[in-house]
C-alpha cells in the first residue's frame, strides 16, 4: 500500500512538472490595454522584441480563452468594475500581470480618478514597474511569470510538499 502511494506521488510530481512546463510555454494572454503602456506592449509584441519567442504570441480577446490577464495601463475607478468582471470571467488556472507603475501602485496619478494599484481589487502575480516599462523589462517579467507557473503544483502536489 505504502509503495503504491509513493509511486503515485512520484507520478503526480512528474505530471505536475510536465503540466507546468506545458503551461508556461503556451500562455494565452488577454491584453487589457487602457493607456500609454499599451504602446510599449505593442512594441514588446511586435517584431523587434517579439513575445512569441516565449510562447506568448497569441493574444486572446475573450477572457474565456485566456489564462494570463495583462493589465496594461492606468485603471480608473470608472474602469475598475469592468476589469474585475473580466478577471472573474477567466477560467482557472489564471494569472494576473500588472504592467506598468499605474497598475502596480497608481503611479503619480494620486487623485480622485484612479485606482491606486490593481492589487486593491484583485490578486496580482507579477508586477512589472516602469512608466512605461521598457520591452526588456516586460520580457523579464514574462520569464518570471513562467518560472512561477512552472513552480506551481496541483493540489495533490502541494499536499505532498
Amino acid at each position: 500500500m505504502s509503495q503504491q502511494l509513493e509511486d503515485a506521488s512520484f507520478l503526480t510530481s512528474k505530471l505536475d512538472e510536465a503540466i507546468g512546463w506545458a503551461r508556461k510555454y503556451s500562455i494565452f494572454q488577454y491584453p487589457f490595454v487602457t493607456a500609454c503602456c499599451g504602446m510599449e506592449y505593442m512594441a514588446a509584441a511586435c517584431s523587434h522584441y517579439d513575445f512569441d519567442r516565449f510562447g506568448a504570441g497569441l493574444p486572446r480577446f475573450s477572457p474565456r480563452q485566456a489564462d494570463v490577464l495583462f493589465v496594461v495601463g492606468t485603471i480608473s475607478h470608472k474602469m475598475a468594475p469592468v476589469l474585475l468582471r473580466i478577471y472573474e470571467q477567466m477560467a482557472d488556472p489564471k494569472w494576473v500581470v500588472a504592467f506598468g507603475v499605474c497598475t502596480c501602485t497608481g503611479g503619480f496619478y494620486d487623485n480622485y480618478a484612479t485606482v491606486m494599484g490593481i492589487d486593491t481589487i484583485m490578486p496580482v502575480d507579477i508586477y512589472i514597474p516602469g512608466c512605461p516599462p521598457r520591452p526588456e523589462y516586460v520580457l523579464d517579467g514574462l520569464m518570471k511569470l513562467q518560472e512561477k507557473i512552472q513552480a506551481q503544483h496541483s493540489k495533490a502536489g502541494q499536499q505532498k510538499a
Partner: protein
Amino acid sequence: MMTNADLTALLKERCPDAVRAAHSWRGDQTARINRESLVKVARTLKEDPAFQMDFLMDVTAVDYLTFGQRPPRAFFPSSGVDVAPAPEIPADTPWPGGPEKERFVVVYHFYSSSLRHRIRLHVPVEEKAAELDSLTSLWPAANWLEREVWDMYGIRFKGHPNLKRILMYEEFIGHPLRKDYPVNQRQPLAGPGAVKRSATPSAPAAHSKGSGDLETREMLLNVGPAHPAMHGIIRLVLKLQGERVKEVDVEIGYLHRGFEKMAEVVDYNGVMPYTDRLNYVSPLINNMGYSMAVEKLLGLNVPERCHYIRVIMSEISRLSDHLTCVGASAMELGAFSVFLYLIKAREFLWELVEMVTGARLTISYCRVGGVKGDLPEDFEDRCQKALEETKKVLKEADALLTRNRIFVDRMSGTGVISAQEAIAYGITGPFLRASGTPYDVRKDCPYSVYDRFDFDVPVGAKGDNLDRYYVRMEEMRQSIRIIEAALKTIPPGPVLVDPETGRPMAAAEMVDSAKIGDIPVIARAVAVTDPTLGGSARPQHLGIAVEEKRVVLPPKEDTYGNIEGLMRHFKLVMQGHGVRPPKGESYFPVEGANGELGFYVVSDGSECAYRVRVRPPCFAIMSALPRLLTGDMLADVVPTFGSVNMIGGELDR
C-alpha cells in the same frame, strides 16, 4: 498671418450692452460679457462678416475660489519652514482679466478659419445660479464640451439636449475640478469602500416592438469598453436595424485620470511628465504645446536652436503617431502584416528619440524655457538613417494598402463628413483636412519656426476614411521633409574644445585626459551624469534654453557638478519658489497629431498653475462619432473608429 483687428472693440460696438470689459494681453484678445447675452454674442461672432468665427474651439471654466491664495500641495506637506518667495518676473502690462465677485468664469475660445483670428470670451457665473444658455444650437461642438463643464464644475447649460456626466461616472458625487474638491478624495466602484453601482446601465431603451416573426427588429449592441476591434477604451452602444446603425451612444471617460487637477498641485515643470501621457504616441508635441503656453505667459522666447530641436522632435513624434494610427486601423481591418511593418518603423524612430531624450515614449524632454539636453553629436546621421528606414517602410505599407482591394473597399465611402459639418463639430487636424479644408496650425497660425520650412498640407476631397488614410500617409512624407530641412538649417550648437589647442574634442576624451593629470582640461570639463541621454555629453546647454535663471532648470551636470547649479535647481523646485509667471492667462495652440492641441493656462502668480486646460483634438472628433456612424453598416464602425485615432490619454485626460 493673423489679422490684427481689434476684435474686442468691434464686439463692443456690435453688442454694447453685453460686453462688460475687454482686454488684450500677450496677444490674446478677451471680452468679458454678461451671461444673459451669451447666445446673442456668440451668434454675432459666428455670423457677422467681421468675425466669421466658424470654430468653437473650446469651452471650459475656471473656479476662482482660491485665486491668489497659496495653493495646496498634494505630495509634500508643508515642512513648517516659511521661505521667502522668489521675486515675480515683472509683466510688461498687468493682466486686467482677474477674478470678480462671481466664483466661476466660463471660458470660450473661438477661431475664424477664413480670417485667421481668435477671440476668448469670459462669462462670469455665480455659484448659486450656476447656469448658462447652451450653444449647442449654434455649434454641435458645444455638446460634449458643455457636458464636461457640467461634470467638472457643476455649471448647468439651459437648452442642452443631454446634460449628463461625461468623464466621471453617474455615481460620483461632487464636481472634481472645483477648488474645494480635495485632489485625492476617491469614490471607488470596486474594491474596499466601493459605492453601490446603480443596477441599470445608462443605455438607450431597448427593442422596438416587432410584429411578425421575420420582421427585422432593432437590436442594441454594446461595444466596449474593452473590445478587441477597438483600440482604446470606449464604449459604444449601437442601435441596429439589421446591419444598419440607426443610433449611437458614445460613453467616454474610462481613462480619466485627472490631468487638469494634477496640474494644479504640481509646479510648472512638474506638469511636463503629465503632458507626456496625454497623447502618449506623440508626447513631444504635448510637451511643446504646454511649455510654449507657459512661455507665452512669462513673455519668453526660447533660442533659435531650441526651436529647431523642438520642431525636429515634434515631427518625429507626428511620424510615430501616424504610423501607429495607420498600422492599428489596418490591423483592425485584418491587415496584420502592415501593423508589424509600421511598428518596426516606429521602433527605429523611438531608438532615435531615446538617444536624444533618454526615454522611448514618455520623454518629458521640454522644459519651461528650453529643452532638457542638446542633440547628441551624431544625431544627424542617425536621424537620416532612421528616416531612410521609415521611407522604405512607408513604401511597403503603401504597396500593401493603397491598391489593396479589400482595404480600399472598406475604407472608401464610409464615415463621410463634409467640411462644413466637421468645422461645426470643432474637428481639426488630418480628419478635417481629409474633407477638404486645409486648416493646419503650423501654416495658419505659425508658431516656433514652422514658417521657415517648405511643406505641403495635403487635403482630401470626399472626407471618407480612405481620404483620411491618404492624408496621414502624405503627412508623414511631409514631416520627413520638414525634419530633413530643419537638420540642414539648424544653427550649430556649442562644442567642447580642448582649452589649449582649441580643437573640438569628445567629452569622454576630455575625461580621459583629465584622468592622466591634465589639470587645465579638468578645470573646465563638465561632469556627465546621464549616460542614456546622448545630448548631455555636450559642453553646456547654451542655445537650447533661455538665459533666465529664475525660469530654466539648470542642466543636470550643473546641479550635480557645482554649488551654484545645485542652489539654482533648489530655488526652482522648492515649495514657495519655482517658476512664477505673472498673474494672467494664455492660450497656445499647436498642431498635434490629431489636430489643434491647445493649452490654456491661468496663473495666479504662485509656483503652481491655477488652471491648466487642454483642448484635446480627438475629443471633438469623438463627439462627432455618432454622426459619422449613423446610417453606415455595422462593419463600417471599425474603419471609421480607426480613422479617428482615438488616444485615451488625450480624450479623457
